[in-house]
């Protein structure tokens, strides 16, 4: 049964791509707990993986001595995940649109686009002291929708 009160789960891990499969497993377990359907489960786990990939790759430059902090907060109404790295951040305005025809064959540059397509809220916070946090929110209530 989905939790009646809002629950919080923290996962702090070394910055290596090798941990993506562990993160995927944790996100799937939480989605199972929330009793969302398979499509929504895929949406949530994909978004979590994209945010963590960026934190590990761009934020912490795959330095395993740096930590990526993931906080999941959820109840039957909403799923939120906050991913924080120790990096210098970036300029959101410089992020290209991957579905422009001239960008379609680029190998990279689809992560943030997928986050925005899949989730209801995507908020970046750049800490002047260093560190990037992205918060993703998906509504699970009556109005909840899956990606497709």
């Amino acid at each position, binding site marked *: 049964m989905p939790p009646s009160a809002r629950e919080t789960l923290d996962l702090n891990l070394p910055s290596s*791509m*090798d941990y*993506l*499969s562990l993160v*995927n497993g944790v996100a799937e377990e939480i989605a199972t707990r929330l009793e969302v359907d*398979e*499509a929504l489960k*895929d949406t949530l*786990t*994909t978004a979590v*993986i*994209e945010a963590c*990939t960026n934190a590990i790759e761009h934020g912490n430059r795959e330095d395993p001595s740096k930590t990526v902090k993931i906080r999941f907060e959820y109840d039957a109404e909403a799923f939120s995940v906050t991913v924080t790295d120790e990096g210098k951040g970036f300029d959101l305005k410089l992020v290209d649109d*991957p*579905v422009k025809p001239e960008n*379609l*064959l*680029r*190998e*990279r540059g*689809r*992560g943030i*686009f*997928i986050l925005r*397509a*899949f989730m209801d809220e995507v908020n970046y916070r750049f800490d002047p002291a260093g560190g990037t946090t992205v918060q993703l929110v998906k509504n699970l209530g009556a109005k909840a929708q899956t*990606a*497709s």
Partner: protein
Amino acid sequence: MNLKRVDRGDVTVLVLSGKLMGGPDSVLFQDMIKDLLGADRKNLVADLKSLSWVNSTGLGILISGYSSVKNAGGVLKLAAVASRIESILMITKLTTVFETHKTVDDAVESFGGE
């Protein structure tokens, strides 16, 4: 990701399974494509039936394969795409890049028979 190769006439089917998400997957896939192009096999089908999941880095791997094959005068088509992966391909408009077939047989036949 696991990668298996099955030759069917002059078409080669690449069977991907597991999760496609970058890192070692990228090298594995690129090496396979290089080997095939080196052997002048340019009619390729990626069978995604057993691929459970892909992220944006994984999409990049497919595109990199697509471009290498195209540059060599061949084509990489997709077959049997599961719905969770289909939805990512649609949202990123990669359905306009990849020729996609319902089944591996359809994809193989689209090259003009085995």
